[in-house]
């Protein structure tokens, strides 16, 4: 029972991070039908941006309030990562629009390799660490065989994720930008006939996806306290799996898929073997694609009028 509760907490924490990344995959796929292979590396990049901002704030500028530094880092990383992704879309994907279908996909793989190599060159191949923060731990149960704990970090991760997802949901459902975004997803040509600047809307989709990935990056970095140039790949694939499991193109699906992948991963590690936790995620990807290609909340293709 204790193990179960503990893994539930750990799984939801991890799942929040996957969910935030998964939204970027699902939105880009929804609007231009492309699997953005570089998205995991954008996430990794954001963790490095967060790391640098954190070091600058606490060490160079001598800021002592960790919560304040965290908020600034979060906002700064969102903005800077969004700018990066905006530029990536302009340089690597937009010129290929209207080209053959695989072209942007190949370009995205190239961009993924470029980003991880770029970070390796400028930051070095070794792990970068930050001092631990928000380390306070709450003991939920005591005296049993095993104390179930909830760390401040975990509360923070779930809370930040929930707040940002709520804001994001409002943006997509209630604002004209979100409406334009959904319109482009359904019928780009019709959206243009109504005066929607489709290229701009696609740009903004990349910007929003990157901002959410940056939130995940900041949370990831503060959770593990360490980041490496190769950290884009595995979380990227898991978040992609989350998007596929939830139903690619579906925003609630991405969040649900993220939480499920997080839970499956920690329960797999706890009850079977942590050696195979990545294999579990990859197997789910394969199984979903074979048996349930439209995912849990995805819509079957027939609705494409």
């Amino acid at each position: 029972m204790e193990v179960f509760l503990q893994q539930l907490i750990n799984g939801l924490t991890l799942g929040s991070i996957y969910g935030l990344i998964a939204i970027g995959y699902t939105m880009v796929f929804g609007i231009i039908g492309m699997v953005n292979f570089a998205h995991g590396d954008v996430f990794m990049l954001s963790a490095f941006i967060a790391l640098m901002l954190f070091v600058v704030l606490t060490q160079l500028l001598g800021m002592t309030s960790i919560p304040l530094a965290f908020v600034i880092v979060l906002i700064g990383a969102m903005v800077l990562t969004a700018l990066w992704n905006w530029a990536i879309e302009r340089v690597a994907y937009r010129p290929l629009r209207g080209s053959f279908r695989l072209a942007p996909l190949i370009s995205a793989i190239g961009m993924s390799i470029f980003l991880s190599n770029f970070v390796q060159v400028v930051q070095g191949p070794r792990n970068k660490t930050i001092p631990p923060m928000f380390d306070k731990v709450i003991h939920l149960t005591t005296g049993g065989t095993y104390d179930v704990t909830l760390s401040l970090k975990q509360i923070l991760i779930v809370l930040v994720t929930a707040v940002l997802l709520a804001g994001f949901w409002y943006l997509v459902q209630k604002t004209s930008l979100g409406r334009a975004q959904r319109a482009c997803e359904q019928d780009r040509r019709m959206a243009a006939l109504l005066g929607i600047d489709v290229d701009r809307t696609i740009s903004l989709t990349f910007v929003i996806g990157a901002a959410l990935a940056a939130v995940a990056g900041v949370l990831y970095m503060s959770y593990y306290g360490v980041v490496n140039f190769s950290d884009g790949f595995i979380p990227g694939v898991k978040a992609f799996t989350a998007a596929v499991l939830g139903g690619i193109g579906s925003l609630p699906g991405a969040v649900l898929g993220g939480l499920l992948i997080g839970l499956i991963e920690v329960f797999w590690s706890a009850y079977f073997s942590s050696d195979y936790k990545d294999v579990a995620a990859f197997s789910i990807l394969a199984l979903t694609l074979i048996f349930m290609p439209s995912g849990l909340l995805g819509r079957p293709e027939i609705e494409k009028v």
Partner: protein
Amino acid sequence: MTAMTQTLAERAVTRKAPLLAIRGVKTYYGKIVALKGVDLDVQEGEIVTLIGANGAGKSTLMMTIFGSPRAREGVISFDGRDITRLPTHEIARLSIAQSPEGRRIFARMTVYENLQMGASINKFAYFDQDLERVFALFPRLKERINQRGGTMSGGEQQMLAIARALMSRPRLLLLDEPSLGLAPLIVKQIFDAVKLLNKSEGLTVFLVEQNAFHALKLADRGYVMVNGVITMSGTGRELLAKPEVRAAYLEGGHH
């Protein structure tokens, strides 16, 4: 209503310059030519109809006006301005609206959201007012306001497509086969609405139809397109009287 008197005054001054002028337009799909040099005018305040058999190139012309696909040769001008090379969304922002072939309703959006999409270009400045206006025209839409576009009947979708186009307060409304697949009663309702918009608001309409009889009766002037070229033009009455038109587009159950 002041807006309307202005337009009438303007019209008197610029009587000869058409609102929409199409000159020598050629459009291709890859290597295949779909429009082989089309000339066509729409004057402000007119209802102009384009009739022609399936595959003649009517929808291609409607979309070429919006630059999607783009004309490879020729010039399209709107209100005296060359729009041939403008991006599609900028053409829309000049107050040209289209209810396209197949209606293209956003299926997963509600009726209300579809109408909001129509009002995007003028930043919702007249949204509530215009909403009442299109609901007066098509009361059915008001009942369906929270329904998803994709779940509505063909006639309701057509009304929504026209209403969505009207939400942008267009100076020129393009309608591509609004009667296709609809019951006669609904067709009448839609044609009556178009007539009313033209008479009471002075809205300029360019209408593509296979339902030639109704379209020519409604229109001030008409054009006939065959295989990507205009073969005849004249007032609606003139075209209706022509034996070639009668033989090709009116006899055999088209009306």
